[in-house]
């Protein structure tokens, strides 16, 4: 099936509505919503990090409500087995043959809740699926149908009982979205919305209309890849990633995959902004989300409590932007 990219105006309208709908459900998280959309448009997986209760899960559920496709949610726990994610073979007594029972991973939008609570083996199984786009069960390779997007949430590593994701696997996530606690005002709004005319404390996503079907989504993603990208913007993105690699205090910097991710994210951002071309601004504002999980800070910086974001803030100030 060949697809045609969505015309710019149509894409912009779709994305605008999407942003609004989700914004109504989850208030006070403009930046996170924007970045979530970038991941959606750039067809990349995203990792959402924040302390419990800031609405990470709700964000993803709202997004899932907007996309008409199969949605699955896995709560990661320390005893979760790889086959609980990917599926397994069961023996069918009637037919006397093995039958593959597909796991929750066979979907379009997967919410992996608290991914860092599962043991490394299970994480590896899922991250492999993210990378390859396919799952192997009993020696049989099964393709995951596109669009396949994983939104994983995790609590900060400092919280008890978590397995940090290995660096190589973090690299599979296009973005790491930092979901900050909402401002006091936004929190008040959220409380009012949550307590008026509703029973229980289950936040709902009824404000979100099912706007996108999977085909439109794929066309949207396609149109993001056709945006105009000037050489200077490309150079700028590469220069940023390279600078991050040699930045003082950075123990291990982002690999080449990071440059690609940065450009992909910048393109998607440009589309969301309603432009058909990418600017250094797009690159600049995607730097924290793309790079923050790809840096490992040196011990000195970690002891001093410098966060990756502060360092990246410094980085974008110092790496010259194209001006000629």
């Amino acid at each position, binding site marked *: 099936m060949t697809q045609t990219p969505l015309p710019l105006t149509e894409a912009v309208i779709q994305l605008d509505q999407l942003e609004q709908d989700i914004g109504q459900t989850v208030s006070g998280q403009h930046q996170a919503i924007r970045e979530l959309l970038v991941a959606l448009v750039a067809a990349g997986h995203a990792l959402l990090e924040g302390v419990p209760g800031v609405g990470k899960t709700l964000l993803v559920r709202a997004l899932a409500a907007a996309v008409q496709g199969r949605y699955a949610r896995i709560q990661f726990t320390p005893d979760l087995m790889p086959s609980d994610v990917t599926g397994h073979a069961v023996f069918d007594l009637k037919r006397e043959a093995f039958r593959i029972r597909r796991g929750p991973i066979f979907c379009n939008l997967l919410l992996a809740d608290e991914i860092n609570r599962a043991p490394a083996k299970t994480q590896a199984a899922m991250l492999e699926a993210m990378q390859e786009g396919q799952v192997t069960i009993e020696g049989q390779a099964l393709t995951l149908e596109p669009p396949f997007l994983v939104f994983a949430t995790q609590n900060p590593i400092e919280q008890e009982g978590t397995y940090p994701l290995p660096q190589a696997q973090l690299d599979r996530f296009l973005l790491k979205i930092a979901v900050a606690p909402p401002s006091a005002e936004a929190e008040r709004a959220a409380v009012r919305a949550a307590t008026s005319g509703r029973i229980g404390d289950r936040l709902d996503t009824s404000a979100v209309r099912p706007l996108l079907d999977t085909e439109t989504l794929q066309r949207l993603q396609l149109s993001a890849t056709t945006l105009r990208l000037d050489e200077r913007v490309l150079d700028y993105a590469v220069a940023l990633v390279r600078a991050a690699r040699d930045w003082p205090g950075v123990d291990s910097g982002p690999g080449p995959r990071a440059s690609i991710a940065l450009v992909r994210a910048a393109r998607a951002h440009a589309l969301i902004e309603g432009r058909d071309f990418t600017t*250094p601004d797009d690159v600049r504002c995607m730097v924290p989300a793309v790079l923050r999980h790809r840096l490992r800070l040196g011990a000195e910086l970690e002891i001093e409590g410098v966060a990756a974001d502060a360092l990246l803030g410094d980085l974008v100030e110092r790496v010259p932007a194209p001006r*000629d």
Partner: protein
Amino acid sequence: MRLERLTARLRPCPAWQAIDLGFALARAWFPALWALWWCTALPLTLMVLALAWLHSDLWLLALWWCKPIYEAPLLLWASRALFDERPRRGALPGMLGAGLRPRLLPLLLWRRLSPRRALVLPLLLLEGLPGRAHRARLRTLAEGSASGWLTLVCYHLEAILWGGMLLGLYLLIPEGLAGIDLVAALDDSASPAYWISSACYLLACSLIAPFYVCAGFALYLTRRTELEGWDIELAFRRAPPPPAAVLPALALLAPLLLAPPPAEAETWPDPEAARARIAEVLDSPEFGTTREVELWLPVTDPAQRGTEDAEDSWAATPPPWLAGTIQWGLVTLAAIALLVLVRALWRERAPRLPRSTRTGHEAASGPHATSPLDHESEIRRLLDADDPGAAIGALYRASLERLDRLGLSLPPGATEGSCVQRASARLPRRIRVPFAAIAAARRHAAYGDRAPSAAHVERLLSHWRRWRGRTGAH
């Protein structure tokens, strides 16, 4: 002895590296060792103070002589910590008592000045062999261990720390206050300065002692590792078991004993066997010569001889032209260097000129780069050449320069969006609105391949001129 629990990585290595390992150990355990040192030294200090009738020199000498007493507990502590069992508080009295054992007596009497003290200490405290066996064992262990050098150097390190502290105190106390009389601090034992100096020395001793003791201990351990193959044993113990594991057999192996103190630690009690083994060891080419001593003398000797020879052969007066030649040589060299520099400076500058007339590539690099009039003529030229895209680029850079002069600091990383953001936060409306328009046009031209019309550029230019004219006034 449970080699699996070693907290240091032991391997046969040259004596210097063993000493360094000892220093690393001492550094890791420093707070505990230092406190332990004072646990014995402080009571003794006070006691001797009373006994010495307040004679500071006697006091210091007595304390200095008693060093092995404070060092013994440190060693016992280290020998436990090495096997990852930090002694508890309850074990401290026993360890302090070790400082007063009769076994330590030789170290306090005739062995006090032995340069191998660091190595003797573990031998005495951990092995406790009778006289002759002890001497033989010491000879084996001291082979190539540089323990003499260790004592010499640590003695100097103490002296350096002491001198440093004293001099530092002397320099730091402002002139108006009662300063320290440095001369009195060295030779007048009745002066208060001498007391301060003695206290500094004691402090220096306490700082170096953990390092000295641990270095001696590490030398001892390294030699034993070498002689008894500890590292090999450790690797063998960690070897994967045979498929059908016969694990109980491992447990049957009689473990060597080191850490819990004395007599059991003995590995070969028979002096005859010991001597035979010493001979065996000494025959091995492994323990041949010490290289560090051989290199001392030959280096300075020829130098001195060289000077004497030279003095004989040199003429007493230089030829009169020599100074002039050297002088003019120097001046000529300097002149050439200056010429080369000027040429290089010019080259550094040269490539800018053609480029700035072409696209104004450099303009954003600094406020001094080009005058506003140049900018304007440049933009005009580009407009005339029907290149509004380049013209808007030049206009954008010119306005950045303008903003820079207005005190809006724009780091090199500032993109169009962030420039506009900064401008709108800090500048009045009449500047930020036209600037935002320029930035937007520039963005479309540069990255969207949509050059503005010449008329649009003209309009922006005229706005800019007005804004520049007004701000240029102050």
